[in-house]
């Protein structure tokens, strides 16, 4: 069997194998800061009852942001529920991310090539494969990339998706963030495989394991897999090894199933601090700039929250409007009934 060593972009001699400019690295850093600020804000809002159950990305900022930077805007992003950071990078306005957290809309904006976040686990991997088929059929130089976690690799749809992708040789990437936990289930209870990347081998597709807390390595691995897919050399399963430093969602209490010692070990590898140190060493980041970024992020988020909260109550009709393109009379009638009720 193949080996699946963890890819890093800085080798033991300290040579950096990063194909993009360090400017890109700085942008990635900035958005990682924004994502963390967003999660902190949303957690506060959740405690105040202004936002519903919410899945934070704490500890996974490198995997979320850098992977999305490696995509082009014409690529299809097929996200799961924790991927608001990636969606934001791909073009989803901050306001929409907040609307989604507030249960006011799907995580979708017209014109952005991203599907609404998939809630049922692994089901959306198949959509990415179908999108990739359509891209190939229409000779569009783009790819589709699905986001999911380690738990998803146990679902049937994960295996069906990799199998179809292998048979069809379509330009699709499967980006698995192995964050160690599927709510309370650790990876070793999820699979007896040593790695998740090796599951690719059974389907005759490439598997890569990358340090998911090394933003530049994530960027590099996705970029290369994307290039390969565009050239017609087939799909790749990418396992980004990271850690969910926070709860599964705001409804979860991780102290029930893992020790604070384990969490501390991982927080020491915090991806934001790691990239920050690197950028400081490169002379691209200063303490002042970092503080500036944090202030800007908070300000932008507060503004977006303000805009969204100023929107007022939802319209009852909006839950009927888009069930079909042309509404059957029965639903039209129900819409009217509910509309009348809303005016009572």
């Amino acid at each position, binding site marked *: 069997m193949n080996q699946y060593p963890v890819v890093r972009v800085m080798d033991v001699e300290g040579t950096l194998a990063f194909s993009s400019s360090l400017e890109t690295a700085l942008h990635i850093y900035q958005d990682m800061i924004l994502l963390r600020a967003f999660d902190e804000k949303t957690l506060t809002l959740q405690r105040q009852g202004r936002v519903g159950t919410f899945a934070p990305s704490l500890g996974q900022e490198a995997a979320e942001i850098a992977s999305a930077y490696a995509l082009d805007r014409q690529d*299809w992003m*097929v996200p799961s529920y924790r991927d608001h950071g990636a969606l934001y990078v791909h073009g989803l306005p901050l306001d929409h991310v907040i609307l989604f957290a507030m249960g006011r*809309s*799907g995580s*979708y904006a*017209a014109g952005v090539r991203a*599907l*609404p976040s*998939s*809630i*049922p686990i692994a*089901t*959306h*991997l*198949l*959509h*990415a*494969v*179908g*999108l*990739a*088929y*359509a*891209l190939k*059929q*229409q000779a569009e130089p783009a790819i*589709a990339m699905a986001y999911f976690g380690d738990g998803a690799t146990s679902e*049937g*749809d994960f295996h*069906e*998706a990799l*199998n*179809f992708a292998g*048979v069809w040789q379509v330009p699709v990437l499967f980006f698995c963030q192995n964050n160690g936990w599927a709510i309370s289930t650790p990876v070793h209870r999820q699979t007896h495989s040593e790695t998740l990347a090796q599951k690719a081998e059974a389907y005759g597709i490439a598997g890569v394991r990358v340090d998911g807390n090394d933003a530049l390595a994530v960027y590099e691995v996705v970029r290369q897999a994307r290039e390969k897919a565009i050239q017609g050399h087939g799909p790749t399963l990418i396992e980004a090894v990271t850690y969910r430093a926070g709860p599964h969602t705001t409804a979860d209490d991780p102290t029930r199933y893992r020790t604070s010692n384990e969490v501390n070990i991982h927080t020491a590898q915090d991806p934001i601090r790691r990239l920050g140190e690197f950028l400081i060493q490169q002379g691209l980041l200063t303490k002042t700039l970092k503080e500036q970024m944090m202030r800007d992020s908070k300000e932008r988020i507060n503004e977006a929250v303000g805009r969204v909260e100023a929107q007022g109550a939802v319209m009852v009709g*909006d*839950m009927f*409007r*888009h*069930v*079909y*393109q*042309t509404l*059957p*009379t*029965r*639903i039209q009638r129900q819409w009217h009934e509910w509309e009348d009720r809303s005016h009572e």
Partner: protein
Amino acid sequence: MSEKNMVEALHDTLSQMMQHDPRLVLLGEDIGVNGGVFRVTDQLLTQFGSDRVIDTPLAESAIVGTALGMAIGGLRPVCEIQFLGFLYPALDQLISHVSRIRARSAGALGAALVIRAPFGGGIRAPEQHADSAEGYLTTIPGLKVAIPSSPADAKGLLIAAIEDEDPVVLLEPIRLYRLGREEVPDTLYRVPLGTARIVQPGRDVSVITYGAMVPLARAAATQLQQRYGWDVEIVDVRSLSPLDEETLGQSVRKTGRAVIVHEAPLTGGFGAEILATVTEQAFWWLKAPIVRVTGPDVPFPPYAWEDWYVPNVSRIAHAIGQVMAEE
């Protein structure tokens, strides 16, 4: 214009539509080289190539799930599920994604795809090949469900389904596939989804049914016409979702009596929806309680019991007699 059975009508329609719309792709198990287990896609692989007529690996969830991706990506997929009883792994895709992508994207994305599946008993098929699962599907908002009972309707419904911007499941009664032939126009015509058909008008009683039960209802009606002179109206629902409430209501307001026939089990079956709808529409015109003729509440049995399970002419005639007896 030529005479065709339902398989030929479906085949020729797919071929016509594939020529008509280059975005159309077919995918399913054994539909290419083998032409489908019922030969509905016979020779289409040769005609349109393997990029558009796709023999898939054996995974129903993946057939439906990838079709959704294809549809969003600009293709018009038509999936074949080999038998409706094999659709169940794909229900998650239908319920969680296909039916609600339009709502979840506030109307920006749609699942313009069709799922074709042969269904129903009566051909001595192995176990689990004969389920009538339409009732599960009609409970899914965002999905449309249609069932033809004739070759001409099969063509018109298939075209309407392919052209629809929303997902449509077209259930094809296996027993009618090669049962009879009728004139099928060569033109591209549509049977609008949401319209029932009066198969034969009558004054005394409405038999409301669909699919393979339609010819049985006709046979029962003929028998009763000859024996007692009863004038039976037969309504082919043909579009279960959306449902043509108007035509159903009109028919029962006219006759004051109704018998509902389907093959699926009684409890929670689509007949309950028809009965409720007709009651809402025609309660004050009813002269007798409505009677349902359905499969019993047992799993579809091995075929030695098939004739006991599937409604037949005599059960339908008996039920009509029951509602006619009430004054």
